[in-house]
C-alpha cells in the first residue's frame, strides 16, 4: 500500500499550487494513472479520502483517468497499445520499443474556488 505515500506527494503539489493561485479551497482533483504505474486507482481514492481531512482539499473529489500501456516501435515507427505487455512490435516483430505512456502517474488538473 504505497498509495498513501504517493498521495502525500500529491498533497505537497496541491498545497503549493493552491497557494500560488490564492485558492480558498480545492474542489476536485484529476489524476492520470498509467496501467503500469503500479498503483490501484481505488486505493488512491481511499488514501486521498483519508489524507484530505483538515486540508484545503477536505471536500474535494478525486477523479482518476486510466491510460493503457502504449509503445512505439523504433524499427518501423508503428504505435500500439500493448495490453498483453509482450515487448514485441505487432507489425514487424522488433523488440526495440519505446514506451510512450502507461508507466507514469500524473496530476492533470484541479478545480479550485478563488
Amino acid at each position: 500500500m504505497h498509495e498513501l505515500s504517493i498521495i502525500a506527494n500529491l498533497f505537497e503539489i496541491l498545497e503549493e499550487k493552491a497557494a500560488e493561485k490564492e485558492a480558498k479551497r480545492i474542489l476536485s482533483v484529476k489524476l492520470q494513472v498509467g496501467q503500469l504505474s503500479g498503483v490501484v486507482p481505488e486505493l488512491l481514492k481511499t488514501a486521498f479520502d483519508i489524507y484530505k481531512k483538515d486540508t484545503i482539499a477536505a471536500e474535494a473529489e478525486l477523479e482518476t483517468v486510466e491510460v493503457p500501456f502504449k509503445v512505439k516501435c523504433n524499427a518501423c515507427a508503428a504505435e500500439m497499445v500493448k495490453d498483453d505487455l509482450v515487448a514485441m512490435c505487432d507489425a514487424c516483430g522488433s523488440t526495440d520499443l519505446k514506451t510512450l505512456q502507461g508507466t507514469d502517474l500524473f496530476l492533470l488538473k484541479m478545480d479550485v474556488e478563488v
Partner: protein
Amino acid sequence: MIKKEVLVLKDLLGSNKAVAKEIREQLGARGILVLNLISSPGAGKTTLLEGLAGLLRPEYSMAVIEGDIETERDAERIRAKGIPAWQIMTGGACHLEAKMIGKLSPELPAGLDFLFIENVGNLVCPASFDLGEAIRCVLLSTPEGDDKPKKYPQVFISSQCLLITKTDLVPPLPFDIELARREALEINPRLQTFDLSAVSGAGMREFADYLIASLHKLRQNHA
C-alpha cells in the same frame, strides 16, 4: 463562488525521481556501482549478499543498506561478515524511497566499489520508486513459483537483471526455470538473467563477474 480550473500536469513521483537522479550522478561520479535488490520476502536477498561477500572481497569492497519494516537483523547478519551495513526501518512502509538513500550516502566509505540496497521484501510497491541505482535486480526464488513475471510485470519490466534463486531446490520443486525466464524476457527482452543458488554456490561466480564487469563499465562512462 468563483470556480477556476488549474492545469498542472505534474509527475506524482517527480520529487523521488529528482532525488534518485542526483544520487545516480553523485555515486556514479564516485565510481560506486549501486544495486537495488527487489523481491518477495524470503527470496534470499541477504543470503545472496553473504555469498557475494566471499566472491567480491578482498579485491573489491562492498557496503549494504538494508530496508525492513522492523528489526536490525539483516544488517547484523551483514556486519557479522565485516561489511559496513545500515538498517533503514520503515516502520510499516512497504518500500524504500530515494531520500532515505540520499541521507545515508555521505556516510559511505571512501573508495567503495559496490553498494547493495536490499529493498523491503515486496514485489509490488518498490517497483515504483527509483533509488538512484545503476542496476535494478529482481530476485525470483524457486519456491515462489514460475508464474510471477506475468503476475507482477512492473518490477520485471523496470529491472535490468533477473536472478532466479534457490535453484538447488529444483527438483523436487516443480519450478520451470526456462518458462520463468522466457516469460520475463517476453515482457522485458533486455533483462540479464542468472540462475543461482547462494547455498550450493552454483551460478554465483557468473553473477559476481557480471557485477565486476558492470563496475568497470560504470567507471569508464564516468572517466
